[in-house]
């Protein structure tokens, strides 16, 4: 089937077409999609076993059947074999046959272990296909949590009933990213104290992050359904807000840049695997490890403008004006042997070198003497 036909069919929520498009994206095809924001992308994270899949199942079941729901669940790939055991569907069996629900398991793939470019592409495809909700279950550890904030409109962090110490340990990472915190498995009596500890933690983090950070904290039980209606309401209200204040388009932009970064990691990994000749040069000492890395990334191969030198009478005055323009300007240094005072002005990947003569007999002073002032500050 041609890609145009698949796209056409995907628009009608044809799951076979959606599935084929996602596979193509995984295999490196980049469909050009005109994505208009309509899906609420909800990242679900939390430690392994905290109840993520079960909660997604219960939420998806409660969402009205005229809404299209997509669920992407991410499992880690083995860094050695590339294989992955994907078991999140076990908790969602009953959703499989619901016409409005599409579920896809994706592996992290690659050395990095977070999301990969295909996950971002899958989100684009699902939004294009008209999903109202896209739930993204992460592996709940490491890189995936930093990545998810670039693709999700809302991040839901699950905290299972834990001891105070364990909550403290969560702080690094998970405590910074959430929009909604959920004490999961709230049918367990221990969740009461977890809820209190979590509230205290949120207040503490707010002192660092600022008053505007006001995440919702809720108790739910995915297994028994407690608190899930309330959670869905918080999620929908938030989506209304995001739509009103135009924040949805921000995520569309950060989704694009994340896809670029993740694809770059993938390309880098591939070229590392192919760089056997560089590897042997590093092993036999012909190249230093860092020089080899630079060569791999073509840092040396392209000629680059290093700097443009400008001779000037009053360097401090010029430096001040460049600073006023918002440019980064170095402190002046005096180079006695060349009879100049030097200031560097940084311009992206090149610089201007300002030179002020130290006396009338220096080369630079004579140079200025001979020429008209071409440079106005």
């Amino acid at each position, binding site marked *: 089937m041609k890609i145009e036909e698949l796209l056409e069919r995907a628009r009608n929520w044809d799951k076979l077409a959606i599935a084929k498009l996602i596979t193509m994206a995984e295999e490196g095809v980049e469909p050009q999609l005109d994505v208009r924001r309509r899906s609420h992308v909800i990242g679900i994270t939390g430690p392994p076993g905290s109840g993520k899949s079960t909660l997604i199942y219960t939420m998806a079941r409660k969402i009205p059947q005229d809404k299209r729901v997509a669920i992407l669940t991410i499992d880690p790939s*083995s860094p050695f074999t590339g294989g992955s055991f994907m*078991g999140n569907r076990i908790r969602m069996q009953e959703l499989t*046959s619901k016409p409005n629900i599409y579920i896809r398991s994706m592996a992290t793939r690659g050395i990095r272990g977070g999301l990969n470019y295909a996950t971002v592409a899958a989100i684009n495809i699902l939004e294009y296909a008209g999903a109202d909700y896209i739930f993204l279950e992460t592996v709940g550890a490491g890189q995936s949590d930093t990545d998810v904030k670039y693709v999700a409109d809302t991040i839901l962090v699950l905290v299972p009933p834990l001891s105070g110490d364990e909550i403290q340990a969560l702080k690094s990472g998970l405590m910074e990213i959430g929009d909604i915190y959920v004490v999961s498995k709230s049918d367990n009596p221990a969740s009461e104290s977890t809820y209190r500890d979590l509230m205290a933690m949120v207040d503490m983090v707010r002192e660092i992050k600022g008053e505007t950070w006001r995440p919702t904290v809720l108790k739910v039980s995915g297994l028994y359904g407690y608190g899930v209606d309330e959670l869905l309401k918080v999620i929908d209200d938030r989506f209304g807000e995001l739509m009103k204040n135009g924040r949805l388009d921000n995520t569309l932009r950060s989704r694009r840049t994340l896809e670029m970064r993740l694809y770059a990691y993938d390309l880098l990994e591939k070229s590392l695997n192919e760089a056997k000749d560089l590897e042997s040069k590093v092993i036999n000492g012909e190249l230093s490890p860092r020089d080899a890395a630079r060569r791999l990334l073509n840092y040396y191969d392209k000629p680059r403008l290093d700097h443009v030198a400008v001779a000037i009478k009053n360097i401090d005055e010029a430096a001040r004006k460049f600073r006023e323009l918002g440019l980064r300007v170095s402190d002046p240094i005096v180079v006695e042997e060349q009879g100049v005072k030097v200031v560097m002005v940084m311009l992206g990947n090149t610089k201007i070198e300002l030179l002020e003569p130290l006396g009338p007999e220096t080369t630079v002073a004579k140079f200025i003497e001979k020429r008209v002032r071409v440079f106005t500050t």
Partner: protein
Amino acid sequence: MPKPKVIIAKLGLDGHDRGAKVIARALAEAGFEVVYTGIRQTPSQVIETAIQEDAKLIGISILSGSHMELIGELMRIMRERGVSIPVLVGGIIPPEDRDALLKMGVAGVYGPGTPLREIIDIVKKLTGVS
């Protein structure tokens, strides 16, 4: 590039999934992306899962004794939905049923004592992994 995606499912009402899980883990170790569906699946759920996951092979474990009906239904739904990927069946299957299953279009039938190596090799062959 990881190896193709395969589905391992338990059809029917019995709740013993140790064997199926062992196979799923072994295939993941061998580099496949393995979706494990869990127990008590219906044939239509399995096909629906294969479609949504765009799987390249289905491995079914059946211990309940009702393999003839369940696999018959599975193959019928596959034809109906236009899904044509290989199906492997594992479980306690009497020899006479084995031939009948192969006639239905099943790609292979494996009893409980089959070495994991052999299963990995046949999955590789059927999914075109060298």
